[in-house]
């Protein structure tokens, strides 16, 4: 078959019959748009979470009693340092501080500013801060969301925390860090570790948990085993466990959506089947003519399938393109609320553009395969039109 003449003829035919195909392309593109948007959002969130995870310490050790985290004794830190192969052992103090008004809470993070951090972002944050000035008196670094909230409640330069003992602790705002800097979350308050202890009610010898890194990944399993044997109520979690639970969570969300989507998809295929049965039956005379002029059934099949493929690809590209713009350029208004749910603080989350090969293939398969399957029988039916039809 001559490729040039074939494509020329195909384009002419498609253009002539554009009104027949347009509605199919529009509906397909819309369905694809919805599907791609959701998958783009979930793969982008997943990507961001993995990125976040990358900078986190490898292991977290805490004391768990009755399934609930309780303050971890600081002496465990010394035991961990003694284990060969362990580096960057860091104690952490953090917790949620609840405000009376509107039941909002912020994350308080206590940091030992004089030690090297196992969390890469904290390490960067310390490098950027004038430590001397910061440690001079009760001061904290806050995220943008916190700052906005405090401003709205008449706390311009400081805030009075209520400690578990019932005393007030006045802390000055040293600096506000914008979310875009990626160093601090929107709802975070970073302060010296002793100050955080006081506000969160930890004693001198207690921390929330202890983190450390193990540079050699081959030793991770062995290390988990070893550290876990230190104390009966010690729980150790490594990055891989966290990653797996993220993976499961997003599979769960995406998978549930896909299964709901199947209902839409099967309706769509039924509509396609009927529509193309109708469209093609009106073409019988033309096909008969082609057959009378010497086109074989194979030629007609090839012609009709290429026509279908053009429609499939056109709507695929349209749908994916608009979804990309919607999610990554416009930030997915509406859908974002559905996906992330009502959040504590208005979070200025932006989606990192990720064009994942597997997501694109999955979208293509779940859409193109049923599409072609649905029009296959109508295509066959019209392709085997007897050339006699041209004589009628």
């Amino acid at each position, binding site marked *: 078959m001559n490729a040039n003449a074939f494509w020329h003829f195909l384009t002419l035919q498609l253009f002539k019959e554009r009104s027949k195909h347009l509605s199919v392309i529009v509906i397909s593109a819309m369905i694809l748009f919805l599907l791609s948007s959701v998958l783009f959002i979930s793969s982008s969130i997943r990507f961001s979470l993995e990125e976040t995870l990358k900078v986190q310490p490898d292991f977290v050790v805490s004391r768990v009693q009755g399934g609930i985290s309780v303050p971890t004794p600081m002496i465990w830190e010394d035991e961990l340092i003694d284990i060969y192969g362990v580096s960057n052992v860091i104690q952490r103090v953090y917790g949620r501080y609840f405000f009376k008004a509107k039941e909002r809470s912020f994350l308080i993070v206590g940091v030992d500013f004089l030690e090297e951090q196992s969390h890469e972002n904290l390490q960067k944050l310390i490098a950027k801060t004038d430590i001397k000035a910061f440690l001079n008196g009760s001061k904290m670094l806050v995220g943008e969301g916190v700052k906005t909230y405090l401003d709205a409640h008449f706390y311009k330069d400081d805030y009075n925390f209520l400690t578990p003992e019932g005393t007030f602790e006045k802390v000055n705002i040293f600096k506000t860090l914008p979310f875009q800097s990626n160093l601090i979350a929107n709802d975070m308050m970073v302060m010296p570790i002793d100050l955080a202890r006081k506000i969160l009610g930890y004693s001198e010898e207690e921390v929330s948990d202890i983190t450390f890194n193990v540079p050699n990944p081959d030793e991770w399993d062995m290390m988990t*085993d*070893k550290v*876990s*044997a*230190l*104390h*009966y109520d010690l729980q150790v979690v490594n990055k891989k466990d966290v990653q797996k639970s993220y993976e499961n969570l997003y599979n769960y969300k995406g998978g549930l959506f896909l299964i709901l989507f199947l209902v839409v998809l099967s309706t769509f295929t039924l509509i396609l089947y009927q529509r193309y049965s109708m469209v093609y039956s009106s073409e019988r005379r033309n096909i008969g003519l082609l057959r009378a002029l010497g086109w074989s059934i194979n030629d007609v099949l090839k012609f009709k399938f290429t026509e279908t493929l053009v429609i499939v690809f056109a709507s695929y590209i349209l749908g994916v393109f608009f979804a990309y713009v919607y999610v990554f350029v416009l930030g997915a208004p509406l859908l974002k609320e559905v996906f992330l749910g009502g959040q504590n603080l208005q979070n200025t989350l932006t989606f990192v553009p990720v064009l994942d090969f597997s997501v694109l293939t999955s979208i293509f398969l779940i859409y193109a395969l049923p599409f072609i399957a649905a029009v296959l029988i109508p295509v066959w039916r019209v392709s085997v039109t007897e050339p006699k039809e041209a004589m009628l």
Partner: protein
Amino acid sequence: MKKLLPLLVIFVIISIIAIIFVSMAKDTQPITVVKNNIQMKALPIKVNFTNDSYCKMLITTKRNSLQVVAPDGKTWFFDDPGCMILWLEDKSFKEDAKIWVYTIDTDKWIDAKTAWYGVKDKTAMQYGFGAREHKIEDTIDFSEMQLRMLRGENLANPKIRKKLLGT
């Protein structure tokens, strides 16, 4: 060239067959299972030439090694009582199998079900159950050992290891 081709083909075929046959003749695979042990006796074990059927490791010492003989005479070998328990669990002949273990105190094959097991011995796979003919302090019987193994209460569990050995 045309005439040479069949000769060449034959030459290559012969080389291939030769390689395969020579290799097959030399082939010596370690023992994993022995058949026809109808009397269900303890067989002599070839150290460093027999594989544990569960963990696939070579059996390097006779002490504390085991043999499981199924009623049809098939015999499997193990380097640690723990391995044997885990392997046996889903077998249909679990109850009817004859199990031999080589003791660490008297150096002989005895019925594993009559042996006494230490709980913090040094064993090949670090489960800690060393087989003895005679009962001493802190030893447990076969069914207790089996239960602890299946429950995971052995030295491979860090919390248990800490309790028993202190590390």
